[in-house]
């Protein structure tokens, strides 16, 4: 995973609430067995409009997306995160995110920034004309007009994002703890250790 310290650039002022994962990447794009190339299907329905933001000369390739409440609601498809990455988006700013989407985004090195609606309103305004700067280390979003918004982020997620750490590798290093749990569980709740019966 790519380390992420700062995101700087134009922000696509999408603003919509409840942007669901079917809007981000419709189901017929999910028939892939790789993670690449999904940018073509990203926001497909919105991009049928020739005047859409995503393909405009001004916002094409912008690294930041500003959206309304409950961004990424709906399905668990990680393709939504892959589609954003393929479009070049590495940070999304919104008042709230669906739990599954924010996890998927994090695991792909996309920063999800939660800010109150007033801040979103201001950023929507700035985004029309000017770039936005996100500093993960300092946990701030700033604009060329002296706006400065601080955001909260889970310390573990911050650490992983800043260093581009692979979570699977980190957990595999906890093998002893996992094996200890399995032994305890096998003694206390033995039926849970018996799954389909194939060789473990």
């Amino acid at each position: 995973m790519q380390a992420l310290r700062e995101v700087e650039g134009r922000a696509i002022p999408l603003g919509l609430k409840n942007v669901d994962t079917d809007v981000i990447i419709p189901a017929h794009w999910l028939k892939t067995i790789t993670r690449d190339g999904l940018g073509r299907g990203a926001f497909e329905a919105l991009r049928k409009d020739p005047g859409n933001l995503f393909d405009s000369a001004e916002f094409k390739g912008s690294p930041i997306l500003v959206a309304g409440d409950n961004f990424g609601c709906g399905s668990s498809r990680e393709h939504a995160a892959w589609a954003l990455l393929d479009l070049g988006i590495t940070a999304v700013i919104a008042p709230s995110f669906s739990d599954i989407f924010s996890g998927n985004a994090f695991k792909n090195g996309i920063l999800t920034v939660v800010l109150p609606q007033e801040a979103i309103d201001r950023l929507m305004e700035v985004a029309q004309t000017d770039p936005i700067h996100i500093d993960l280390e300092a946990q701030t979003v700033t604009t060329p007009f002296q706006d400065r918004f601080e955001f909260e982020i889970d310390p573990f997620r911050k650490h992983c994002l800043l260093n581009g750490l692979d979570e699977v590798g980190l957990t595999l290093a906890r093998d002893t703890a996992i094996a200890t749990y399995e032994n305890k569980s096998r003694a206390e709740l033995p039926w849970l250790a018996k799954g389909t019966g194939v060789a473990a």
Partner: protein
Amino acid sequence: MTSTPRTLYEKIWDAHVVETRDDGTSLIYIDRHLVHEVTSPQAFEALRVSGRKVRRPDLTLAVPDHNLPTTARRDAAGKFIPIADPESAQQLEALTRNAPEFGVRLIGDADPEQGIVHVVGPESGFSLPGATIVCGDSHTACHGGLGALAFGIGTSEVEHVLATQTLLLKRSKTMEVRVEGKVGPGVSAKDIVLHICGQLRASGGTGYVIEYTGSAIRDLSIEGRLTVSNMAIEHGARAGLIAPDDKTFAYVKGRPYAPTGEDWDRAVEWWKSLATDPGAVYDKVVVIDAADIAPNVTWGTSPEDVLPITGTVPAPESFEDPSKQEAARKSLDYMGLEPGTPLDQIEVQNIFIGSCTNSRIEDLRAAAAVLKGRTKAPNVRWAIAVPGSGLVKRQAEAEGLDRIFIDAGFEWREPGCSACLAMNPDKVPAGERCASTSNRNFVGRQGPGARTHLVSPAMAAAAAVTGKLTDVRTLA
């Protein structure tokens, strides 16, 4: 032992903590992992690339469901009919190759038990009360109807669970949604959960695990409870839970992967201990009077856009929140609806009975009870009944339900996710409406431009008969 009263969620969580870190996140052990063809190829590929193996293949079960065609899978001579769409075929091939390569049991497309993962899990006894269950699919919340802590995960998490049998999680907040009293005639589990979607809105459950309680929930069959918990994600909650009780134990007992003998007795004893303790505190409580719930339909493009069938299409200005007004305008435009139109005057051209929400035997019985002796209206162009699994299909056929559907003008299909998300050939044409027993009415969900109205199986059957959204209570 802790003396603090705990909720059902907290008890299951505590029993699965491998370790807790200083920042409050915990490594949680996963007991059951369901895998399907759409969200797993990239996870298996990542394992292959990094030379990692599946830690517990015996706790993993693979079933293709999302893009299998629901038309006949074998020709008259019993020969397998190849899947026409090359990309769907490629995903199926990937699963069929990956499962044996990593030692995971596969219920393949030709197996009699094949079906939707969320139907197969409970039906096979693989999903158990008190277990932690994950799948790369947001409707995994479904298994919470058995009292399992079940939730959807993304593909990176699928990889994480395959490699480590754990997930790194933060404890969720808890919400109790208590539905007290008796529901009226014609009101099903689907109507209960659609009502909850309307009350909590699409994000009201975000950050919470919801426990559905109250007499109306206890009165539901296990099938009904699976339907309610299935849609927890539609109000933003990653997981829903319903306390396991005698009905649950009777449902689980004797299923192929269910515990037996001494294990069974110990399991039941533990399951009984999981119920929320008196005095345990939820972070939020929502109380609903079952008598307020009517047969519901959705009018917009979010499951929160729901009203009783006796209502009318709302005006965007009727919403307080300006952004909701804007969303409602967009929804009505997409849905081709005018404010003030009575919901029961909306004509539908398509009927879909199926999906992980409503494709179990009880759902098919409820629809068939309405369809018996009736036929679909002439304006209903396409009506399909898609059983949730091969076992449900054969059970329905043994009861003669397939004949009722066929005689009513329905197509009787092979199991799969089908027109719920239209990844296979089952799509609703642009601009047409579908009365659908599925779980999402999002823009384009059932096909580009398709207009979805979410309803219960009985309501979908009623719509098929009259050709428009219909209050099933008016069909004597």
